[in-house]
């Protein structure tokens, strides 16, 4: 039973990490109607800059403090140089241009940082584990990730629901021309939104740094998962991103944890292992296909 609780917690934590990535992407999708495959690159930039600064200064917080503006700045430059020209174009053009950007950023990190993965340490004050329930120990750092994710979710909600800027952003997503006519600098607004999205990706990257390998190309594996999350949740909806992320995190983790046991009850052990593990690796895609077949616009479509 404790194991089940622990696996739920693991799923939740994976989901929260995915949410950090998805929030930025769904924002850009929903408000600017632009598809950005290079979102994972900003995650990677966050992780690389964070790891480098943290290693040089010895401080995790300084690493985070450097990673966020770095990712945001790169994002705004990319928006200004490339994506701005593609808002009026078809999704296809956006897909291709950002595909090119992925190639560029991956190779650039290899040129700058070399080919070997970087090291990033869990800060001492977040190291170790705590005993949540008798017999259930859980790493503090992962709890911290859950905390950061929840904080981001709440502040995004507050930004959009309570502030004037949030209102302008939402309005810009619905009717770009009208908001422009009302005297809002819509170009600047879009650049800011894009920067906010990439900042969140950078945050996800630097938070993942101590848990995962910081390496060139690390963005793509999470990028695909992120897409799955926002498509399940409904493109452009923060609420949907939360729901999608948690759902994907749980399905993926619980699938890996319990499918083999379930299958071992049905088949002999070697078939069970291989069937279960291939099903576990396909589980989230099956989930996504199923959701889209039933609800073609996702669970919480933004503009329904």
């Amino acid at each position, binding site marked *: 039973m*404790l*194991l089940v609780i*622990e*696996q739920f917690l*693991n*799923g939740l*934590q*994976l989901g929260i*990490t995915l949410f950090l990535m998805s929030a930025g992407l769904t924002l850009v999708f929903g408000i600017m109607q632009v598809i950005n495959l290079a979102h994972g690159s900003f995650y990677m930039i966050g992780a690389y800059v964070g790891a480098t600064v943290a290693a040089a200064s010895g401080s995790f917080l300084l690493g985070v403090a450097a990673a966020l503006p770095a990712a945001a700045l790169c994002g705004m430059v990319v928006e200004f140089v490339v994506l701005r020209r593609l808002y009026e174009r078809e999704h296809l053009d956006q897909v291709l241009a950002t595909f090119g950007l992925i190639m560029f950023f*991956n*190779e650039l990190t*290899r040129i700058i940082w*070399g*080919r*070997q*993965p*970087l*090291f990033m*340490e*869990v800060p001492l004050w977040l*190291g*170790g*584990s705590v005993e949540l329930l008798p017999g259930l*120990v859980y*790493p503090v*750092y*992962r709890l911290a990730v859950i905390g950061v994710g929840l904080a981001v979710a709440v502040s995004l909600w507050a930004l959009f629901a309570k502030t004037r800027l949030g209102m302008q952003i939402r309005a810009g997503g619905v009717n770009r021309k009208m908001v422009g006519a009302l005297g809002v600098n819509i170009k600047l607004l879009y650049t800011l939104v894009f920067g906010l999205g990439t900042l969140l990706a950078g945050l996800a990257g630097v938070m*993942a740094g*101590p*848990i*995962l*390998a*910081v*390496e*060139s*190309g*690390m963005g793509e*594996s*999470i990028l695909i998962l992120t897409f799955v999350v926002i498509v399940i949740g409904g493109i452009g909806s923060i609420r949907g991103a939360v729901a999608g992320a948690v759902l994907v995190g749980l399905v993926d*983790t*619980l699938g*890996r*944890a319990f499918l*083999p046991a379930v299958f071992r009850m049905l088949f002999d052990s070697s078939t069970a*292992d*291989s069937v279960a*593990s*291939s099903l*576990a*690796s396909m589980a989230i895609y099956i989930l996504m296909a199923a959701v889209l077949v039933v609800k073609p616009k996702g669970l919480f479509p933004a503009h329904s």
Partner: protein
Amino acid sequence: MKKVVFVLFFLAACTHLAIAEPVKIGMITTLSTKAGYLGEDTRDGFKLAIAQEGGKLGGIPVELMVEDDGRKPDKGKQIAERYIKKDKVRILTGIVFSNVAMAVVPKVVRQDVVYLSTNAAPSKLAGKGCSPNYFSVSYQNDNLDEVVGQYVSETGHKSVYLLAPNYPAGKDHLAGFKRYFTGDIVAEVYTKLGQADYAAEIAAIRAAKPESVFFFLPGGMGINFLKQYSQAGLGREIPVYGPAFSFDERILNAVGPAAVGVKNGSQWTHDLDNEANRQFVKAYVEAYGRMPTLYAGQGYDTARLIGSALKAVSGNLDNLDAFKAALKKADFASVRGNFRFGTNQHPVQDVYIREVVKTDTGYTNKTVKKVFADHVDAYASQCKM
């Protein structure tokens, strides 16, 4: 008339020059993708051997051509084809990954070309699929798991929890471990290829309470697993073991303290006590400013082996059989000390257990124990040449 003579003379000079042309060696390796550093080390080790002789191997001038396969089998195949057909290369080497090797090697060794493996050595090419034109200078893939299996049994662990990615190489490596492990297998878990988060697996290990854990998770997967395993506080409770692929010097510096003390199996360590190794490690650090990995050692050995054979045939590859016979003698000073080829042209060598340690310059391995002497791979008997 004079002109004609001159032209003829010129042509003759050209053909003469053609004979003195350097011997071309085609290296197909992985320089891009996440695994790019593996190919980089292989290449740098190989290049070091050439540089030490001033552009020669075994006294014969050589030209090394290197190209990135991007870890894609069909790209590797395409490069091999170009090397053979366009550049007339007769010596190929360098592939890092088994899947690229399986696409390239069976095809090229049916032509009049020699392939020397600097790393990937899948079981299919060691057993029934062996070929007189194929040499593995590194190992047979399972060797480094077999040694750990033997060692874990010797240390008295009665049970083990196995973990590998869900693809054929993962199954091969676990099979290698099981071949020499005598205790109980608590579970055999196959994870997604390229998986990032191992929390679910680690929780399951904690619940299963095995006496030891053996994992084969190359590259970034291993970094992720080791970091998370140690963060979960299991590092102190249940010891982990693995083959050297997750413990090379460049990975270790990305894993950090989480790997210290972990024992792993390898055929080479930088502290092996022989003259060839001492000068190799020193020269490599001087040339590239980083510690060599086993891949660098394998690249270096391959180059020196080619050098020994080129010397024996005076750089003449027209008679490829003579060149292969010279290769098979393995008449060179390997950085591994003992080295010779078995009947299937895979190494017969000593295999060690080493331990991750921290030094002033970062993390590295030190040799703990020689577990196998003159170890022969499990597939040699199936090879009929």
